[in-house]
């Protein structure tokens, strides 16, 4: 059987253990939640950036080609080629970060048909009439830009799915704390009950009985549960009371 000191220490240590464990788990879940949130935001930012780079590159190619058609010169050729390279870099970056490669399929197809069209006409672009630009080129250009925009929307929708899993992570981070609080309250109530039963109750009973003995010579009688220091104290008081009785006799 534990002594009073050990009992009380155990009570507080139990509470501390519960709070510590739930704290650690909540902390781990919160840090996992935090890193997941950061990763999600990073992914979203990266996705937007690559999509923007692709759109910018295609738009710049478009401007360069338009200038070449209008002016009838090939001055913008180097600008066009540089933007083609920029587009390829952005597309490669997107293919490295995208979760589902199929999401890029439409871009690859649109780019292929766009490139074939330009490759076939780039050498004679100065002689090309505006009707070609408006009727044939423009359709391919719009196909490519809408493929890039669709990729951007689809990637954002995928990320929204990831955000739902964040909700369950947040639930996991909060629940240990709530449960530990519930268990902690139960232990606290039990602790209060045991302290009353094994410590406060006997001490009050001994005090009352001792007072009754001193004032009215009523025999010192206290019922006890447990075999700790309080029980020893009661036995010692009983011994003292008996000695007092014998002396007076």
């Amino acid at each position, binding site marked *: 059987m534990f002594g009073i000191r050990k009992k009380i220490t*155990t*009570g507080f240590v*139990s509470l501390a253990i519960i709070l510590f464990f739930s704290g650690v788990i909540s902390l781990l879940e919160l840090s996992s939640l935090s890193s997941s949130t950061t990763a999600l935001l990073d992914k979203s930012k990266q996705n937007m950036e690559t999509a923007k780079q692709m759109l910018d590159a295609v738009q710049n190619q478009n401007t360069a080609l338009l200038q070449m058609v209008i002016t009838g010169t090939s001055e913008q050729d180097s600008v066009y080629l540089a933007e083609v390279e920029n587009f390829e870099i952005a597309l490669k970056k997107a293919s490295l970060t995208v979760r589902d490669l199929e999401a890029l399929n439409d871009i690859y197809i649109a780019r292929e048909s766009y490139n074939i069209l330009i490759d076939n006409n780039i050498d004679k672009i100065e002689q090309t009439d505006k009707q070609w630009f408006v009727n044939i080129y423009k359709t391919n250009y719009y196909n490519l830009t809408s493929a890039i925009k669709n990729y951007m929307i689809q990637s954002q929708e995928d990320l929204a799915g990831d955000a739902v899993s964040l909700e369950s992570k947040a*639930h*996991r981070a909060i629940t240990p704390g709530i449960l530990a609080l519930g268990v902690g309250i*139960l*232990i606290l109530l039990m602790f209060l*009950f045991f302290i009353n039963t*094994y410590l406060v109750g006997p001490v009050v009973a001994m005090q009352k009985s001792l007072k009754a003995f001193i004032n009215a010579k009523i025999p010192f009688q206290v019922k006890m549960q447990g075999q700790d220091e309080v029980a020893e104290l009661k036995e010692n008081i009983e011994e003292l009371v008996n000695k007092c009785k014998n002396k007076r006799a």
Partner: protein
Amino acid sequence: MRLNIVFRYIGLVLLLNAIFMLISACFSAFAPGGMDSGFYPLILSTALTSVLGAFPLVFVRRKEQINTKESYMIVVGAWLLSCFVGTFPYLLWGGEFGFVNSWFESVSGFTTTGATILNDVEQLPRGLLFWRSSTHWLGGVGVVMFALIIVPAMGRNKMSLSSVELSSLAKDNYKYRAHKIVNILLFVYVGMTLCETVLLKIAGMSWFDAINHSFSTIATGGFSTKNSSILFYDNVWIEVILCVFMALAGLHFGLIFTTLAGKTNNIFRSEVSRFYFITMLVAMGIISLSLFKDGLFSDFLTSLRYTVFQVISIITTTGFATCDANLWTPLAIIVAIYLMFQCSCAGSTCGGIKADRILLASKVIKAKIKSQQHPTAVIRIKMNGSLQDKEVTSYAMIFIATYVMLTLAGTIVCTAFDMDLLTSFTMSLSCLGNIGPGFGDIGTLDNYGSLPLTIRASSTILMLLGRLEIFGLIQLFVIKWWK
């Protein structure tokens, strides 16, 4: 009432729960694809439950005799707190488990009801699947009975707890000294679980599924690791093994022991066991013929195969499924509803009114008719050759009346929430009898997930009432009784 003593014994029960949580955590830690998502919820639940369970042991003396009121309080308290700590792994895991759903799943597990709110059981991690089955296994044998085995201070304590845990009829039938009851339960329960696990493995289940289904069968629970329950396996041998063990689990455990030990007081001589088997056979005959005649199955043997399994599953309050009972004929459904009222023998882990009480009630009615014909005659009521005193017969009648009233009360509450009559009635009956599935929206292949939140919460009260033989739980709320 000495609450400190009550706390100590409840603490021991919680520690037993913690041990099973730890075993479940091991299943998650060593899952085939590496540690799964069930590990942290289970390990944290183990820690919380251990601290809660061990705390009273520090303060309360080891050897204390307990009286009847304290034993009642220990049983009811242990059951309620086990259900409470049983929610921890579910709550911490999340997914479909909110507080009401976790409480429902935990109560359904510990009361061996086997009803679930999960739409997709198979997405649960292995540790949580094992924990669900463990709640059945622990609940089946009686959390308190198990706790007593690990308590060094045995003596008279055992008997006072057994009397609450087992129905009074079962206690009378044992005819053994108090300390033998726990040993018999342990021997039969563990032995049957081991045998069934091995046989299911041989029949084609994986070890993991075999263990889980054995836990469910012996406890007459009904939780499965598959969404379509036993129908998933579509294996005749698995169905045969489950039928045999479900039927055995519906028998008086003491009688199984005496039969194995070759004693004269055995299953074959027991009037109640005979009544239980006759009821089962008659129900199988009526339902299989009705379904065959209706053309639900192409041939009679197929009809018999599915009917036998479903009848045994219902009468033993297990709740496994191999077919959709919602497609049954009205005759088959009403026979099944009778079985849901009667259920199996006292002294088993089944719920319901129990075959003993139905048999006794029929004898009381027969005696009443006789006494009206011969007013001066002294008519004695006997069961298994022994005379039943008036207190036992009147308690059986009161129990049946209360049971019917509670079923009707449950039905009224459900219909108030716009549920259809068949679903409402069979749900109340199923929860009070700790069966699991019913008819309508909660058919054999459905779940309770679609029911209103209030209904899910209130049905757990019926489950607890049924498990604690109705009056065991009611006493808790009678303040005068505490004094």
